């Protein structure tokens, strides 16, 4: 009986860890619930109940007195972790892994999944700005300015995001810096159109993941998570807009 309870606890803990990693790194709710149910089902616990929102998970097993809770405090975007958890859940379903190795591997995914190096991400952000500037406006003259300013804006965003952990604040500061630099570039005749430079440079900050997930959650019937994510995306957009407006007032 004691061994049985211990096993249930292990299953619940593995489920919670998997769910937490998925939500923290930008997965949609349907996948989170599905993965947790699969893990508990494949571990032999069929009666697990779970309640999942973007800020916390509650899970309990029938006929046992205690429920377990995991809070989710920060949400970043790292789709590689989502893919890895998915892979692991598959391997567990095929019984290639035991429950203890699953827990260990999940822990490893949570703590050391390699990311692209900072310089590569910076280059990607800069290139993204330049490319989208061309796509959106069909002008080529401002592409170099967009390249530099977009890169700097992303670097500022990344720096403040790591320092303060308040995403809206770092988005605000980054867009403020972008606006200022664009205004300076136009003054110094390094760029021609202020509007185009700003449009391109702001693109790496766009909250693409919350928007997409908001729609998918709403369609999937998660009426708590969908609107919550939509609000998150709106706040990000508002933060970026406010930063730009602050600069435009003085140009």
């Amino acid at each position, binding site marked *: 009986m004691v061994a049985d309870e211990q096993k249930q606890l292990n299953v619940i803990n593995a489920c919670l860890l998997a769910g937490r990693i998925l939500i923290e790194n*930008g*997965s*949609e709710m349907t*996948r989170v619930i*599905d993965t947790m149910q699969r893990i508990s089902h494949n571990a032999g616990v069929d009666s697990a109940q779970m309640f999942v929102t973007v800020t916390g998970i509650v899970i309990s097993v029938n006929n046992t007195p205690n429920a377990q809770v995991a809070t989710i405090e920060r949400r970043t*975007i*790292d*789709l*590689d972790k*989502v*893919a*890895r958890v*998915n*892979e692991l859940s*598959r391997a567990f*379903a095929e019984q290639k892994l035991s429950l203890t190795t699953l827990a260990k591997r999940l822990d490893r995914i949570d703590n050391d999944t390699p*990311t*692209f190096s900072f310089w*590569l*991400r910076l280059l*990607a*952000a800069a*290139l*993204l700005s330049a*490319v*989208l500037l*061309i*796509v*959106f*406006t069909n002008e080529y003259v401002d592409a170099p300015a967009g390249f530099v300013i977009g890169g700097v804006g*992303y670097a500022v965003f990344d720096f403040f995001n790591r320092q303060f952990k308040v995403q809206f604040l770092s988005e605000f500061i980054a867009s403020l810096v972008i606006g200022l630099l664009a205004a300076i570039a136009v003054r110094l005749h390094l760029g021609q159109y202020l*509007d185009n430079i*700003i*449009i391109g440079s*702001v*693109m*790496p900050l*766009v909250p*693409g*993941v919350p*928007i*997409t*997930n908001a*729609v*998918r959650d709403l*369609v*999937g019937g998660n009426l708590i998570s969908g609107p919550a994510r939509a609000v998150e995306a709106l706040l990000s*957009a508002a933060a970026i*807009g406010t930063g*730009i*407006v602050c600069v*435009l*007032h003085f140009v």
Partner: protein
Amino acid sequence: MVKLLFELLMAYLATMCFGIILNIPRRALNMAGLIGGFAWGFYWIISRLGVGIAFGNLMAAFLISVISMYAAYYKKMPMVIFNIPSLVSFVPGGQAYQMIRNFAIGHSQTACGFLVQVVVIAGAIAMGFILGELYHQIWQYGRKKMGTHYES
């Protein structure tokens, strides 16, 4: 024709770059780029044929959703890895910026015009995704009926 190829290349690059920022797995980068480029090319062609922005964006989002689903099954990876980066070229960034700018300098009438455009485009993309999701569900149902083993 050269212009189309250029646009395809640009969208491909943009999608890959956004993928790097979101840290998608390395072996999915090329596939995501191809989906983004193809969807943008499709949108570019149908918008040349005189389809309005709403319908064009809807079709493109539907296309992204459906191709991402097949890519996800082919590569055995979650679908979000493909459809989020691919969407980056369709974000109504220009219109959103013009809206904010016009509000800031006090031209509310023009700003409202741009606001409507932003809402229409965003709504069309969302609708396209919803249709894609519907397609996904139907396809899944079909597969279950046929008795094949399904796992996402």
